[in-house]
């Protein structure tokens, strides 16, 4: 019988009622008294020297209150990077300045260099258009290889070149060299992980409000982590003490990583509202989002696998160029390194692994974390490579994977992480059952009769969620801790508000978090509310990204609830005149073990707040506890994915016929929400594999700058998905045994799709080793022509 409440129940989401009736409150829905509007003037060239900006005509236009340029930000901090990477020579990465408004030069299309504040949005936009400026266009550098050549145009004049860092990580060089020297077979692959735009459906918004009476600023913003923004903006950019700064991220219409980062517009509206003593609102248009939201992926990689005569993996070596764009976005430096290199072992016991990454500045929009961040790149390289190896060796790709699976846990990989638990054989077994592998050849034959090429692509993945622990990531260069926090505030009559550091932008925290607390206390979920997204209401937490909400913040919530239970038992023991050790809590009743004496949850909570009959000399009144939780390790969800496609040999058009995912997420709190997360991730992964591509021309013009040119997956581009998460090996080090599920789909699906298309072509007699994503009909058709 599936549960209908508590942990494991597929409870319907309570937040849906407001979203379904138009009653959600997203940032752009907020208007405050006296608000003004902001329009940014953004560079239309990829690289240029700002010769002059004449704002005089624009200033005289109706409604215009003030125009800011880079000059107004001289002496004010720039946007900080939150992670310092040390390169292979022990040198710190190069960290160019990133001013709020460009100073001296613009470095990518979309780089803001002036901003108008006016009474209405139209007036602000009109005035922005009337600003007269002279930007002398300079040669732009877009291609990473070209950017690293001698004499290449420099993105930042004050740096010696465009190399941000040259990073190396993994096994001893001699071990890696030996594996390749002694290999019976070596498979080599060069591939591109295409640049993507995250495209949450809600564009970013920032609304700054200043209260001169108490010198307090409030920023309403579309963010995944209000406290992190408060810290970065207060301490690094504007120098406002934290207690004078409140950051609110209300309902947020999707993030997928791109709303983690601290953006110029947030600092700008906060700064400008203080200067004007008026609230300032900025709402991104979609076209603006394409050139001002951080982009994702954009790696070029050469990867090699060494195998012995029995087809065991013996060595792995990678060389990656990672595009940073023109500036370092908040967590950009950590993505190709610590979030990519450390997952390079995948699901396999390869004894020697070496990862090399060169991070490169180019005249493009900054690149940062996007759903999966680093793990999709690692998985794509590895799983494409293993498939190619299987084809070269003439062995079954699933059998080759199975043979090399890590099969005992805990397992310390050569790239520094220790997988605590997992069962890769079980997920592969489950997958094979789901996809009716036996029946595939008959399906292929049936397609062939219709003149179509059918292919089956399979891969597995491992991912690392809940990035931690703080003291380790600190050594690796993180400039923040990675714990989370929760406060459980019990009210006098027993209802509860749980204030959490995690932030919900589609993950359903308001439903799933109460399921945990309700289960622990044995009370009804409807008595529990979740408060999140407002730095003035919640404890200092780190927000939501990297599938950390339940694993990290949920664990803090469990710890705080345990403290509540401990204290409540003390109160109950007093009320029941029994020893504390004999008190049990079950179904919302405190009982004395072995007796029928009991007191209800609500009576205990009332006693805590109306302490008439209460042991005041022993315990404080009230029932409110906070816990901070700093995990001892990452969690390691894993899984196996399969995709079946049909390719039209005439046109190269690929149709996805079915898609199956068998995931191990450890324990699952709300299976309905978990499946939804996987669905969304798969669609984004299919989007990357088939459709999405962020394209620049050689001058750095962004060619895909709207939904007219950037192909977003639509309902017709995806099938119904088959999803299973029954192969659960609970995480061994957090109290819930949860691992995280938000990124899995986006990590696991791109190689499954590409492997399927290559399977179709090769089975059709065409020898094609690889096609770079997205697999447009044109690219597939060209590959088929040889």
């Amino acid at each position, binding site marked *: 019988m599936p549960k209908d409440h508590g942990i494991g129940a*597929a409870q*319907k*989401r309570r*937040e*849906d*009622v*407001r*979203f*379904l*009736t*138009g*009653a*959600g*409150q*997203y940032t*752009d*829905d907020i*208007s405050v008294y006296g608000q003004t509007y902001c329009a940014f003037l953004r560079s239309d060239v990829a690289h240029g020297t700002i010769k002059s900006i004449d704002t005089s005509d624009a200033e005289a236009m109706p409604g215009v209150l003030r125009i800011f340029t880079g000059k107004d930000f001289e002496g004010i901090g720039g946007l900080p990077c939150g992670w310092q990477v040390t390169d292979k020579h022990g040198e710190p990465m190069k960290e160019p300045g990133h001013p709020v408004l460009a100073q001296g030069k613009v470095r990518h299309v979309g780089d803001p260099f002036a901003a108008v504040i006016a009474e209405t949005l139209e007036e602000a936009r009109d005035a922005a258009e009337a600003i007269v400026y002279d930007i002398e266009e300079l040669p732009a550098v877009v291609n990473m290889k070209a950017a690293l050549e001698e004499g290449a145009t420099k993105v930042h004049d004050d740096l010696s070149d465009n190399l941000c860092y040259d990073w190396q990580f993994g096994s001893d060089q001699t071990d890696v060299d030996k594996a390749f020297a002694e290999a019976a077979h070596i498979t080599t692959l060069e591939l591109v992980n295409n640049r993507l735009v995250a*495209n*949450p*459906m*809600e*564009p970013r918004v920032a609304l700054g409000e200043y209260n001169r009476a108490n010198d307090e600023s409030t920023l309403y913003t579309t963010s995944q982590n209000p406290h992190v923004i408060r810290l970065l903006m207060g301490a690094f950019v504007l120098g406002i003490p934290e207690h004078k700064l409140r950051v609110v991220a209300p*309902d*947020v*219409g*999707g993030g*997928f990583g791109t709303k983690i980062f601290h953006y110029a517009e947030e600092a700008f509206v906060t700064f400008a509202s203080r200067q004007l003593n008026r609230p300032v609102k900025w709402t991104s*248009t*979609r*076209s603006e989002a394409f050139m001002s939201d951080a982009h994702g992926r954009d790696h070029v990689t050469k990867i090699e696998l060494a195998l012995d005569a029995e087809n065991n993996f013996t060595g792995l070596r990678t060389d990656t160029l990672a595009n940073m764009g023109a500036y370092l976005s908040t967590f950009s430096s950590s993505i190709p390194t610590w979030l990519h290199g450390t997952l390079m072992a995948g699901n396999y016991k390869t004894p020697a692994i070496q990862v090399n990454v060169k991070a490169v500045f180019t005249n493009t929009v900054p690149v940062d974390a996007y759903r999966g961040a680093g793990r999709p790149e690692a998985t794509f390289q590895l799983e494409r490579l293993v498939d190619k190896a299987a084809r070269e060796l003439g062995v079954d790709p699933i059998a080759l994977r199975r043979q090399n699976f890590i099969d005992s846990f805990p397992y310390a990989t050569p790239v520094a992480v220790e997988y605590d638990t997992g069962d890769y054989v079980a997920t592969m077994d489950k997958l094979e059952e789901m996809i009716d592998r036996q029946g595939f050849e008959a399906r292929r034959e049936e397609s062939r009769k219709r003149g179509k090429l059918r292919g089956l692509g399979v891969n597995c993945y491992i991912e690392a969620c809940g990035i931690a622990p703080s003291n380790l990531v600190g050594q690796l260069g993180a400039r923040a801790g990675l714990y989370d926090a929760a406060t459980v505030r019990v009210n006098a009559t027993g209802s509860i508000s749980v204030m959490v550091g995690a932030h919900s*932008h*589609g*993950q*359903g925290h308001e439903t799933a978090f109460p399921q945990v607390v309700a289960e622990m206390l044995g009370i009804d979920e409807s008595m529990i509310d979740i408060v999140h997204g407002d730095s003035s209401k919640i404890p200092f937490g780190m927000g939501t990204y990297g599938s950390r909400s339940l694993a990290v913040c949920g664990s803090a919530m469990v710890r705080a609830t345990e403290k509540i239970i401990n204290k409540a038992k003390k109160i109950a023991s007093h009320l029941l005149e029994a020893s504390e050790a004999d008190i049990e809590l079950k179904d919302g009743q405190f009982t004395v073990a072995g007796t029928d004496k009991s007191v209800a949850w609500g009576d205990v909570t009332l006693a805590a707040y109306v302490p008439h009959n209460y042991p005041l000399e022993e315990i404080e009144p009230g029932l409110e506890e906070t816990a901070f939780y700093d995990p001892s390790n990452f969690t390691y969800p894993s899984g196996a994915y399969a995709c079946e496609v049909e390719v039209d040999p005439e046109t190269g058009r690929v149709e996805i016929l079915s898609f199956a995912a068998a995931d191990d997420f450890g324990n699952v709190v709300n*299976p*309905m*929400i978990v*499946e*939804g*997360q996987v*669905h*969304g*991730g*798969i*669609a*984004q992964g299919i989007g990357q594999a088939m459709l999405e591509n962020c394209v620049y021309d050689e001058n750095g013009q962004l060619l895909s700058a*709207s*939904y*007219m040119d950037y192909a*977003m997956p*639509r*309902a*017709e581009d*995806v099938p*119904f*998905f*088959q*999803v299973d998460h029954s192969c659960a090996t609970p995480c061994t080090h957090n109290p819930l045994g949860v691992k995280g599920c938000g990124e899995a*789909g986006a990590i696991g699906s791109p190689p499954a799709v590409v492997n399927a298309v290559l399977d179709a072509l090769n089975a059709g007699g065409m020898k094609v080793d690889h096609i770079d994503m997205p697999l447009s009909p044109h690219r597939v058709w060209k590959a088929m022509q040889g």
Partner: protein
Amino acid sequence: MTKVTMTVNGKAVSKEVSGNTLMTEFLRDALHLTGTHVGCDTSQCGACVIHVDGKSVKACTMFAAEAEGAEVVTIEGMANPDGSLSVIQQAFQDHHGLQCGFCTPGMVMTAAKLLEENPRPSEHEIRDYLEGNICRCTGYHNIVKAIMAASGQDVSGIAAE
């Protein structure tokens, strides 16, 4: 500025607008009906779909002045009179057809129009009809399933939730 008069969710409204005020701006800024969302500037995303005189329309593609005398329904007018969720809205909740909720008003409005035109659409017909609406969160699986369920079709065979 011109004066426009129309019925929105059954209520008569009358406001001064300028000739280039978009319907999205009119609903959101003048009427504070912020359920109609703006997700793009090229009429591609469908977050802004409303019904105007019984037709489903992207509110970002029409001027408020064009709705003079029209009967307009937005997401705020879709619940049952007692405030409970309508069949379509309830199906979206039951089948987890939304995550961040930003595309949702447009999806519900589009779905309502589809079911009016075609009370028992096939999976293919639903996917085809949703051509103008983008959802970045759900992978469409549960949206399509919710619409099938709202039309009274048995969805128990389509992957459990």
